[in-house]
């Protein structure tokens, strides 16, 4: 695709602006900002990736992954601000997910150890983990806020913090992972996954595209469950003090 044909695609930006103006939706400013930001951000990423792929230096690949983890942490930490040390818990979770997924992919030679495979797959895994973390932290803090009496009841009867928070922890892990698992049940029936569609449009063999998509889907299953479980078990102890008292958590 040339830059000229891509610029013609801006017609799709004009349509929402015209509709917003016509119906007084006041979306013009945000639409323009979103368009400009996406052009700048993606072009920068494109050129950076081009540089990293050609440099063949592992340091640049590691830096890219570190940048992704940093951005994902920055985004997700606001949702768990009331959990002590949430920044480090998120970093540990994302690194763990990255090690598990890339470890299996590279260890079993499922994908080649090249930046053009490692970086996009890492991006998908860390991005997915970030969304999962936000879902989990949202639900977990809301569960604790809503069930404070039940948690304190168990503590008051001589239960440990782990016993006291068990129901809320399990409910939050389930609630955050179920959407991913459910959406995979209908995948391909309702819509074709984005990555697979992109490969097909770019001229790849559809069966090859499906194989890659399946690989990503299986990796996502691991990353969602690992993210929720790890983040849950890293987070709950900091909700209690040494006297086994429940600390205040703001949902």
């Amino acid at each position, binding site marked *: 695709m040339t830059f000229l044909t891509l610029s013609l695609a801006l017609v799709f930006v004009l349509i929402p602006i015209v509709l917003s103006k016509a119906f007084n939706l006041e979306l013009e400013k945000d639409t323009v900002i979103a368009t400009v930001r996406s052009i700048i951000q993606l072009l920068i990423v494109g050129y950076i990736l081009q540089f990293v792929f050609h440099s063949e230096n592992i340091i640049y690949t590691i830096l890219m992954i570190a940048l992704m983890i940093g951005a994902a942490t920055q985004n997700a930490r606001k949702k768990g601000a009331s959990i002590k040390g949430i920044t480090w818990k998120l970093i540990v979770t994302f690194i763990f997910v990255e090690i598990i997924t890339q470890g299996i992919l590279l260890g079993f030679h499922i994908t080649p150890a090249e930046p053009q495979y490692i970086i996009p797959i890492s991006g998908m895994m860390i991005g997915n983990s970030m969304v999962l973390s936000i879902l989990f932290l949202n639900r977990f803090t809301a569960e604790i806020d809503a069930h404070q009496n039940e948690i304190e*009841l*168990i503590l008051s009867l001589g239960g440990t913090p782990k016993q006291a928070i068990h129901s809320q922890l399990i409910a939050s892990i389930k609630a955050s992972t179920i959407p991913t698992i459910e959406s995979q049940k209908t995948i391909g029936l309702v819509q074709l996954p984005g990555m697979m569609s992109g490969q097909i449009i770019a001229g790849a063999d559809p069966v090859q595209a499906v194989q890659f998509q399946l690989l990503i889907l299986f990796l996502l299953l691991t990353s969602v469950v690992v993210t929720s479980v790890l983040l849950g078990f890293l987070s709950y102890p900091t909700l209690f003090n040494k006297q086994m*008292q429940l600390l205040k958590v703001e949902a």
Partner: protein
Amino acid sequence: MKESYKAAIQFEHVNYSDGSTSILKNITGFFPKGKITTLVGPSGAGKTTLFRLCNRLISPSSGEIQIVGEKIDQYNPIELRQNVGLALQSATMIRGTVMKNLALPLTLKGSKLSEEDATELMQDVGLSEAFLTRNVKDLSGGQRQKVSIARTLVNKPKILLLDEITSSLDRVSQQDIEELIVRINEKYGTTIIWITHNLTQAVTIGEYSWVMIDGEVIESGESSFLNNPKNDRVKQFIKGDLV
């Protein structure tokens, strides 16, 4: 109160604040061991907060609490909470059946409650065995309070903190629970501290009483003082001018 009684719970200049709000102010005094003490006072006086301190769900901002002569923070929190039972007015239940709730204190210790023991506990609080299989969401407020009391008794606590546990009960059920509590006190020597809004109950059940207003202990002593209080604010409270 006569100093000759050993204290089950002793407070020394205890203060508790939630943020900038002072809830308990300079509480000093004790609940005598093996006796029933009633705690009365208008809403918002800090009575429930005092109970939460005794069960160590919260810690005082300053001051010291001793349980049977030992500083509260010397105890393992789990052991302390098993020995200082707390039943709150809210009668919070976990999801599931009455049996699941009743067995909870033992489940937490990794053991089971036998059906015979469960039936006996239910009878003690005036509920039939048939209730054991009922889901707690189908219980009335009064029935929940009864299950909550029975559940607290499963740990066989040495000190029992009861927070308005008969507020949702009819008169007959109230009497049943009052008799049960007196029976537990006499049979096991359990120290009982009972928050109540019912002044008749406070005088007849309690050997000793505390009156708390605005986070302070205003008057305490043998319960009969409630019939003829010295303090003006206590007089006002008893007349019903403070709610």
